[in-house]
């Protein structure tokens, strides 16, 4: 079985000299970030479900927003990281595949966060509007963003060399990011049932109760730590996958050659004699 050192694989996918094999993508840093994420998520549960008050109009359903809003913000961040990493891959001289893996990992996490946003948003919609889904500008553009990045992930799996994958997906990653302003400002551009931005607006007025705002802040911290933790693990796992693909073929060839050498008997006089007898008969 091929064993890979993720710390080395992250930097370079070429064949590495023998090193102590490790089977984990974790390091001391990721463990600290992971523990931080768990603590922050616990803190979010305490503030979101316990300490923060119910809303005058939305009642208890307002608590859903402590997940809904941070996940979509982090998804925007993830897609911007994808675009920046894609640009770094395309326009840098070195063309490091590390940028490509960062773009891919960030897009995967972003898609997951948008899925969470849509799912909890649908629950909130059912409680507040009476329907799970409304054909509204913000919802529709968010769904488009989700499908676009699913397409991006599909392009990453088209096949070909790592460089081909990196180039194709980098172009798409830079194009897809222009949808983010469309999603964010859709509530201003069209008549929308979805409320306008309460915190991330241009007039600087947050229009929100202090404890609710703090709970939202805790949510942002928790999901940011989760994003960083997932990014580190996923980029390392992708580096290992790439390395495994490259080493896998070489290892398979060596194994088949060894197998062939072990099973093929050397030519002997008995064999020759048998063959000759067979021919004669």
């Amino acid at each position, binding site marked *: 079985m091929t064993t890979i050192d993720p710390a080395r694989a992250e930097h370079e996918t070429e064949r590495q000299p023998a090193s102590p094999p490790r089977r984990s993508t974790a390091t001391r840093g990721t463990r600290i970030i992971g523990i931080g994420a768990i603590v922050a998520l616990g803190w979010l549960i305490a503030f979101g479900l316990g300490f923060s008050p119910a809303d005058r109009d939305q009642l208890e359903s307002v608590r859903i927003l402590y997940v809904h809003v941070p996940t979509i913000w982090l998804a925007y961040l993830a897609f911007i990281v994808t675009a920046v990493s894609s640009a770094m891959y*395309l326009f840098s001289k070195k063309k490091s595949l590390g940028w490509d893996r960062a773009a891919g990992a960030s897009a995967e996490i972003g898609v997951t966060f948008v899925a969470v946003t849509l799912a909890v948003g649908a629950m909130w919609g059912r409680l507040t509007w009476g329907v799970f889904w409304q054909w509204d500008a913000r919802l529709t553009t968010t769904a*488009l*963003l989700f*499908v*676009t990045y*699913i*397409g991006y992930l*599909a*392009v990453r799996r*088209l*096949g*070909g060399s790592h460089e*081909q994958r990196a*180039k*194709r997906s*980098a*172009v*798409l990653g*830079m*194009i897809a990011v*222009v*949808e983010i302003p*469309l999603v964010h400002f859709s509530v201003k551009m069209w008549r929308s049932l979805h409320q306008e931005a309460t915190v991330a607006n241009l007039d600087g007025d947050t229009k929100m109760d202090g404890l609710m705002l703090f709970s939202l802040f805790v949510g942002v911290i928790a999901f940011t730590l989760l994003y960083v933790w997932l990014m580190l693990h996923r980029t390392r796992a992708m580096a290992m996958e790439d390395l495994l693909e490259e080493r896998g073929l070489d290892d398979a060839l060596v194994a088949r050659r060894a197998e062939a050498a072990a099973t093929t008997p050397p030519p002997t006089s008995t064999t020759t004699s048998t063959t000759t007898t067979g021919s004669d008969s």
Partner: protein
Amino acid sequence: MNTVAVARLIAAKDLRVERRSKIVTNQVLPFAGITMVSFAFALDKQNVLDTVAPGLVWLATMFSLLIIVQRTFAIETDDGALDAMRVAGVDPRAIFMGKAMALGVQLLVLEAMLFGAAVIFYGESIPSEHAVASVVLLVTTMLSATCGLAAVGTLYGGLAAGFKGSETLLPLLTLPAVAPVLIGATKAVESAVGTSGAVVSEGWQWVGLLTVFAVAAVVGGALAFGPLIDD
């Protein structure tokens, strides 16, 4: 030979191939027509059709776009023509522009037929009191929307060409990307034909959006096409 001249040659070649094979006239146009009729069956109410006809025309255009793009790149990849053009040193921007121009011409023919179908099947008409302004808005909308659709279709067609599963990947990539065209063109045509009391002047802001989209798609596509087909 400069880029524009090469682009014109490629566009002429694509249109010549189409004229000889007659795939668009024999298959895509009937498909678009049956799509329009199917919408009428599904909705089955004249007042609903009056309201949604502009959107249905553009939706049928998008579905047909996917078939035309598949077809135009299948011709290239089957014979390795795209690789041959690159090996011959043809500028990728010229390939992009040429293929987009040919696609645009085919789309304009298709859209003209679909608007005719909307008049016949859905009873759409141009308001007589400001017929000239409506026709100008309608034609400008068709031209700007077609530029955007052709550029996006060519870019994603080139990206998916020659790979396993490109038939299913192309709609997944293209339909979300052309959603602004669907929204803008539908709103502009609603203004042109006066759907639900919309007036012509309201349509021009949507033509502005379509024009910005078309310029971005053409410039972005011309720059991105080279890295995509260089593999």
